[in-house]
């Protein structure tokens, strides 16, 4: 079988050379990009083995399910990721960015993929289209905040993040329920009670593991300072607010130590089967952490650079390649570890981009497409926004992102959407296997 499997370990890069479809013709190397997204009930369509042996047909029981969130930072031009075929409109308004139909990969139902994503698509991808927000803002900041908080509207009600609230629901007292590997704590993981941690880089927290007598002294001192408060200490502090602050500070330390214990043995350099790059680095760590079975359920990773105001025709394909290669390696790794059926991967991005191009790139836009990979029924979901009736050059969303979130909460984790989102958030049917 072509592609990544345990037997191909160590040939990471080269195995992809044989399975990534040639962009000029189809079916040159055993995968037929025109027969993509095989019907899930077959497992693998005859004559079109996908790199990892077919889409997942049955998900693991809810209790052990994990979520990996890939944040595409900057606003992904999803029209350049998944493009309507034969659109004269796109040729007119973004001639420098539109992908020629012959180059699109895995064409189906009038839509075709950026060819760099063919590998990923081959593993089984559900594209959710037309995702946006009420009163879209074109500010990164404002929109990032909305996505992190899980509030598509203009108001600022919540202090927790959507992922943090999921962690609160999933929390079983484990040392860490959610982690971000993408550059520090993310507001998306702000929770009420579950422990969530952000590492600013994969090596953050080295001091928690390294063997050294001085560090032993430091760690044991930390552990001692985090001991539960005695009655006498409580009396000495007196006021409730003082006691609460001190207890939370001690909890911060003890959670840190429990987190360290639970993930002992993780090696950030253990990534032979992964391509080079920041996203791959994060994902290789993510798979080890999930495999450690220490109660970690949600992992947030990020890929920056999507704010393609210029140079988009080379930048965006490069980003798509990085996304593809990292995720394909990750999925294969999950497969090896027996985690493929229990791990859902979702992408997010603060907005799509404007339909007409501008000066070699695109401006901030509104609606976009997000991807779900793993135990999903491959295909296209939602409604691709109209290209003919644009709102000042922008796509009009056909669903709110909290419906996308609700799908993950309800259909994947079995958490009622209303527990973590606005009452009117509605999960989509049929995507999760």
């Amino acid at each position, binding site marked *: 079988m072509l592609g990544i499997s345990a037997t191909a370990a160590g040939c990471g890069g080269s195995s992809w050379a044989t399975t990534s479809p040639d962009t000029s013709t189809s079916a040159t190397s055993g995968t037929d990009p025109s027969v993509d997204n095989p019907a899930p009930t077959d497992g693998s369509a005859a004559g079109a083995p996908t790199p990892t042996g077919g889409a997942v047909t049955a998900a693991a029981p809810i209790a052990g399910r994990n979520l990996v969130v890939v944040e595409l930072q900057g606003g992904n031009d999803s029209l350049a990721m998944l493009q309507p075929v034969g659109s004269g409109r796109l040729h007119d308004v973004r001639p420098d960015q539109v992908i020629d139909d012959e180059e699109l990969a895995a064409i189906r139902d009038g839509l075709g993929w950026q060819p760099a994503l063919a590998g990923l698509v081959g593993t089984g991808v559900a594209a959710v289209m037309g995702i946006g927000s009420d009163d879209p803002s074109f500010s990164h*900041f404002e929109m990032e905040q909305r996505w992190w908080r899980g509030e598509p509207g203009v108001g600022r009600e919540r202090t927790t993040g959507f992922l943090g609230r999921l962690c609160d629901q999933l929390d079983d007292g484990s040392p860490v329920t959610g982690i971000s590997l993408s550059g520090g*704590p993310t507001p998306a993981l702000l929770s009420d009670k579950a422990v969530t941690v952000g590492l600013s880089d994969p090596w*953050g927290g080295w001091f928690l593991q390294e063997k050294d007598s*001085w560090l032993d*002294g430091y760690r044991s001192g930390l552990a*001692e*300072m985090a001991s539960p408060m005695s009655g006498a200490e409580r009396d000495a502090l007196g*006021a409730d607010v003082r006691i609460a602050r001190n207890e939370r500070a001690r909890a911060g330390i003890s959670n840190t130590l429990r*987190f360290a214990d639970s993930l002992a043995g993780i090696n950030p350099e253990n990534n032979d089967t992964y391509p080079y790059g920041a996203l791959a680095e994060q994902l290789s760590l993510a798979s080890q952490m999930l495999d450690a079975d220490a109660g970690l359920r949600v992992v947030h990773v990020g890929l920056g650079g999507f704010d393609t105001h210029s140079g988009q025709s080379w930048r965006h394909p490069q980003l798509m390649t990085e996304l593809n290669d990292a995720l394909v390696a990750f999925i294969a790794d999950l497969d090896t570890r027996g985690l493929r059926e229990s791990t859902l991967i979702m992408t997010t991005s603060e907005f799509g981009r404007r339909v007409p191009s501008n000066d070699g790139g695109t401006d901030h836009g509104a609606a976009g497409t997000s991807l779900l990979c793993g135990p999903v029924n491959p295909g296209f979901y939602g409604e691709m926004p109209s290209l003919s009736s644009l709102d000042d050059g922008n796509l009009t969303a056909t669903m709110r992102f909290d419906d996308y979130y609700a799908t993950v909460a309800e259909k994947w984790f079995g958490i009622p959407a209303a527990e973590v989102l606005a009452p009117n958030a509605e999960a989509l049917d049929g995507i999760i296997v």
Partner: protein
Amino acid sequence: MSGPDAAAPSTSLAGHHSRRQPLAAVGSGPIGAQAGLARGDKAGLAHVLRRCSFGPRPGEVESFGALTPADLVEELLEDEGNNALSAADAAARYADDDLEPEEEWLRALLVQMMQGQHRLHERMTWLWHTHFTSSLDKASLAMMFQQHHRIRRNALGNFRTLATELTTDAAMLVWLDGDGSTGDAPNENYAREFLELFVLGRDQGYSEDDIRVAARVFSGWYVDWESGEVTFNEEAHYTRPLTFMGTRRRWDAESLIAHICGLPECHRHVARTLHRWFIGGDPADAFIDELAEVFADADLEIKPLVAAILRSDEFHAAHMTRVRQPVEWLCVTLQALGITDLEDAEIWPWTLEALGQMPFLPPNVAGWPDDDRWSSASQVVARASIVLDLELPESTHDRVAPTVDAVLARCGLYDVSETTRRALAHAESDFGEFDRRLELLFALALTSPEFALT
């Protein structure tokens, strides 16, 4: 012994005698109504310095040894000077707009906080930045410095002046989309945040229409991105009479702000804000009303309001009720360790980014939240990573004995729990090597629960 629950009458700055209860949340326990009045009370002195500056600086508490915390407050208030911004200024002049990792400006700002002569002024300068937010995410560094200067000039001056100056400030105009906003189709962003966050607070009696009216009044300003110069275009401004919260007038930015600043909601909002900064917790309405009155009587001069807060029992009783935010934590850490060369110590913008608080880059218009996330596991990992990477200067080795008391004093901690003290004592006794013992004591003190609080 009069406990904190006794409703002792006190004279506020406005001369009112009040019988309000001291802040219930911090009422009980050994820190009570007598707090602030004990001469040489190191914990009390340290508390004042923690809340009113970026310290305490090593040796500072000892140097104020003869004072009561209340005396120290008076000394800090008597200081009329403003810190000029010199080193950072120079950095701004040659800095471009790109946020390069090697930027000097951030280090210059931190040095200013740690070494600035006028402590309370420096603290207020920082606090106003966290309130009247703007960000490098949209504004250039030169614009942010220009704004920083405005804030610095007015930090202990007049609130109305500060609010007015910032409304037509380049960085603010760019940040909240006032730049190019026209009277006919005004951008509402600034008006909304001005009312909701900066000056009145949410749900304080103004409607969506009022926000739209304010947006029209604030229109007509343009920013030249190259030079940072701000100009007013009469043609683009809305000139017809408008009704704002029931008052109909032909407004301009200045008159509207003056009107808003005359509202009791404004006085209470600013009182609440400063109360949160200096005391924390939930304030009693009666206390806020009293503070609001002081503020109004002072025609919105900031210093009398600060003074009223710092002179209250509530303030002196509020030890360790707030979490230490990253910028402050870093300043006190560097000073405790005796580190003065920040470039040598490799303090970069990403150091603060890893801690989650980068000056001039608030996460959103509401600024940085003030809650227990700053003592969470993420923060512990980030802070410990930084501390363990720092090198203890020789001079500090010479000055500080490797004992628990010496190190705690150096870190400004005069009242730690038995647990923390025991942990440090074990480190002191179990760890043989002299040099590394000092480092271990510092590492533990700087990541202790008490050091994470203020």
